[in-house]
């Protein structure tokens, strides 16, 4: 009896404590650090609210707030309009090729934010932007029609990168709606328009509001676009301000801390409201099993227009950015496509990257971190999902909530918090790859638990009990029965976490050191150094690595788990 008891209890308690440590300690240290008069570790520090006074009584704070708000709301509106429009035409109209839209929507996920930002600078910069030059040439304009270095440019670059998320969420919302509710309204004698206004819209409202909130929080947390476009354009938002406060010399940890707490408060509010709207069950919503047959609207000849517009959006989101990255990666110096440059195309950028002193380290680090964090996140969250879904242990709801805390923590805020944690605690991992690993596990835990819980719910309790009744211990049952049955969700979560790990920038940038450089940091540094063509070559290699990893994971998962 004791043997059984011990191994189970040890694993469960161990995993729970680890989750509390990962999610709770950074939060506590951030709050603590923001009320200290000197950086942690320095003697003579006292408690103070000076950091907050300094932050809030500065005119710049309100400018920051205003900029962040404009950027987040702008991103929210633009990405929502594009994503919802595409979702509507693909789910509820007879637009041709609509099956293709889903595949098209997934492609942008594989392009790291930093690359998409760089691509849009290369497309819309007033001096070198390809689109600007082409439009200027065609319309014989005096000046460049677009300027990416503006609030509008920032919003566009962010929204065109994030809209696929809106598309997926809104497609699901359209799909899960019971169309007989609309049909009941039509049969009651109301017109299509009245039905839309009185029935469809109110039914969609919770879904729409929650999607808007997610996009708002994403905009608040965004780092790549504000750092690469906002900083040169002198448009500061919270994330870049925190970054600069730490990267200036000497670092102002106190100020960074108070800004970080403010940003955290904003995003937490958003996440909490979101949580209220979407009930707990829906957080795990995968397939409701109710296959409603969607009522498809016949658009008549308009369907060619909607189809064309979808392809235009696809071109903007994928074809243009990918083209400019590929093009730039094969030319010796940056320039607009021309016959002359085509003749000079070369793979020199790739050989340069391969021979770049840090490149091998960065590739290795990124690869290990991505595989390591994805594997550990999924193993950890599988155990947590078992506790929260299958067990009747006290405190399981609390544990579930704690696992979700990091979703409200913007990457840059997590970075600030972890600096404090590992400069204070006697755990000598600061500046090593291990601190990055812990950061990634913390940050991506919520995505892992979502995938693991959704799968865990679908495992019949009796499959587990049959193992116990066969004499299996808890550990044997978990390892031989639950984990294999969890494989589809495990693999899906693993692929997602490994992809977002590989492109992570906003947390890493505060925590890396020379030896723990990762690919996204290397791309950032090359860009800051003005080496555009090299960045693009590196970017293409990153995307190839991501595609290869997703492919291998799918193959492996299909072999281990149940054939889907």
């Amino acid at each position, binding site marked *: 009896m004791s043997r059984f008891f011990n191994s189970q209890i040890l694993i469960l308690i161990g995993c729970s404590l680890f989750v509390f440590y990962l999610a709770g300690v950074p939060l506590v240290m951030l709050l603590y650090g923001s009320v200290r008069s000197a950086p942690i570790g320095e003697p003579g520090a006292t408690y103070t609210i000076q950091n907050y006074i300094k932050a809030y009584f500065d005119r710049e704070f309100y400018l920051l707030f205003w900029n962040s708000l404009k950027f987040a709301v702008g991103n929210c509106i633009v990405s929502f309009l594009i994503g919802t429009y595409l979702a509507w035409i693909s789910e509820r109209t007879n637009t041709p090729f609509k099956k293709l839209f889903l595949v098209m929507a997934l492609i942008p996920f594989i392009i790291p934010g930093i690359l998409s930002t760089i691509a849009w600078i290369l497309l819309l910069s007033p001096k070198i932007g390809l689109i600007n030059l082409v439009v200027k040439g065609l319309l014989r304009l005096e000046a460049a029609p677009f300027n990416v270095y503006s609030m509008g440019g920032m919003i566009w670059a962010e929204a065109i990168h994030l809209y696929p998320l809106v598309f997926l969420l809104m497609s699901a919302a359209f799909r899960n709606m019971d169309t007989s509710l609309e049909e009941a309204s039509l049969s009651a004698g109301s017109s299509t328009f009245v039905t839309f206004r009185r029935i469809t819209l109110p039914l969609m409202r919770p879904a729409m509001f929650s999607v808007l909130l997610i996009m708002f929080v994403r905009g608040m947390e965004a780092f790549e676009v504000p750092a690469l476009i906002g900083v040169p354009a002198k448009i500061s938002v919270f994330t870049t301000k925190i970054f600069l406060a730490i990267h200036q010399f000497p670092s102002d940890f106190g100020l960074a801390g108070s800004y970080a707490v403010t940003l955290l408060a904003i995003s937490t509010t958003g996440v909490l409201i979101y949580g209220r709207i979407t009930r707990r069950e829906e957080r795990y919503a995968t397939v409701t099993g109710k296959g409603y047959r969607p009522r498809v609207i016949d658009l008549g000849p308009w369907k060619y227009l909607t189809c064309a517009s979808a392809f235009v959006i696809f071109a903007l989101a994928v074809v243009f950015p990918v083209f400019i990255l590929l093009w730039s990666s094969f030319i010796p110096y940056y320039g607009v496509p021309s016959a002359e440059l085509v003749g000079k195309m070369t793979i020199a950028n790739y050989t340069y990257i391969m021979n770049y002193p840090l490149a091998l380290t960065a590739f290795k680090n990124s690869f290990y971190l991505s595989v390591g964090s994805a594997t550990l996140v999924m193993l950890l969250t599988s155990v947590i999902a078992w506790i929260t879904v299958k067990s009747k242990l006290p405190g399981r709801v609390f544990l579930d909530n704690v696992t979700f805390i990091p979703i409200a923590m913007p990457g840059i805020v997590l970075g600030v918090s972890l600096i404090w944690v590992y400069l204070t605690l006697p755990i000598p991992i600061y500046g090593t790859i291990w601190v990055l690993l812990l950061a990634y596990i913390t940050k991506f835990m919520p995505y892992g638990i979502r995938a693991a819980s959704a799968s865990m719910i679908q495992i019949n309790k009796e499959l587990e009990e049959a193992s116990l009744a066969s004499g299996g211990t808890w550990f044997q049952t978990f390892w*031989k029965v639950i984990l294999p049955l969890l494989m589809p969700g495990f693999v899906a979560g693993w692929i997602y976490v490994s992809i977002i790990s590989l492109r992570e920038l906003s947390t890493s940038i505060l925590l890396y050191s020379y030896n723990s450089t990762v690919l996204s940091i290397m791309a950032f540094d090359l860009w800051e150094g003005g080496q555009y063509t090299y960045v693009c070559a590196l970017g293409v290699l990153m995307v190839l690595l991501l595609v290869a990893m997703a492919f291998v994971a799918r193959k492996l998962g299909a072999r281990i*788990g149940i054939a889907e």
Partner: protein
Amino acid sequence: MAEKRFMVQIEFLEKYFGEDKDRVHVLKGISLDIPEGSLYTFLGPSGCGKTTTLRCVAGLERPEGGKISIDGRPVFASGERVYIPTNKRPIGMVFQSYAIWPHMTVFENVAYPLTIQRRPRRSKSEIRQKVEEVLKVVGLHGLEDRPAPKLSGGQQQRVAFARALVNEPKVMLLDEPLSNLDAKLREQMRFEIKALQRRVNITTIYVTHDQAEALAISDQIAVMHAGKLIEVGTAHQLYSRPKRKFTATFLGLTNLIEGKVVELGGDSRPGQMETKKGIFSFVPATGLTKGETAVLSIRPEHIQVHKQQPQGLENVVEGTVKEAVFMGDAYHCQIAVGDLLLRVHTHPFLSMSPGEKVYLHLDPQSCNGLPAEDVEGMDESMLGA
């Protein structure tokens, strides 16, 4: 049998579900002794606590009070704080959904209880041999390498049995094992389970809500209702001599006539009950007292229909045919005796038409006198089934 040995003993089992305000008392002091080698059925309507009792024996539920012993060894005792976890109990279990692991082959499923065993650790050849043996017993020989999702419902069930039996447990627990099969297969499997149980001679607890299944398969049946044990007996005893009103109504069809015991009878003399339809001779259940209000229970097939008034017979009443439905092997009739409606099954050759006047003979040997109130809070709708 000189001395009956009990394989499973349950004493005063108490179990609650839920917490605080929503606490529900699901097992109210269940006590049972299950003889070695028998097929013992827990029978009752859904929510009666039969599955919960089984799961307590398996260790999948932890009771709040009482004691459970398997083979003389306590596996749960609330007083002594004994609780042996499921995986250390000498049991094999077949689940309602069969719980065949879809990521394993037939062989891997059945071998699982052996492969995970640490002491004694078994060799590969020993495992293979045992699995082959047990697959032969359940009639699945040659399907070892078939992936589990490619099995039919009946095959999955056989795999579940093989897996439950392979490690030679002391008790086999079956949780409604036939409820997921179609009607034809269900009848066939009843006989197979019975035959299998006899062949292996293993003590088996069988949970079902299907009374026909229980009658067909069991050595002994424990009738349960609302967390309480109502009555234990063989199929024959429970059907023809129920001691409780609930048993009489839950097992098969019966007619109930309310009355009052005027004479208890004794030895070979029948008792006498006074009802609104006259005085009836009956066989009293143990514990019934003189003067007590009681019910008289008689099965539809034990009422004989006469077209003319029979002479020299007790328990005869006059009635009018309300409905007569031909069922092939019998006529199922509803016959009104005043305001009382009796169900009667008659021989198919005795044709009857609605409105006809008939005489009914209620065979005194088949009239059971039962206590009128035996289950508190009994739901009348449940009795009609």
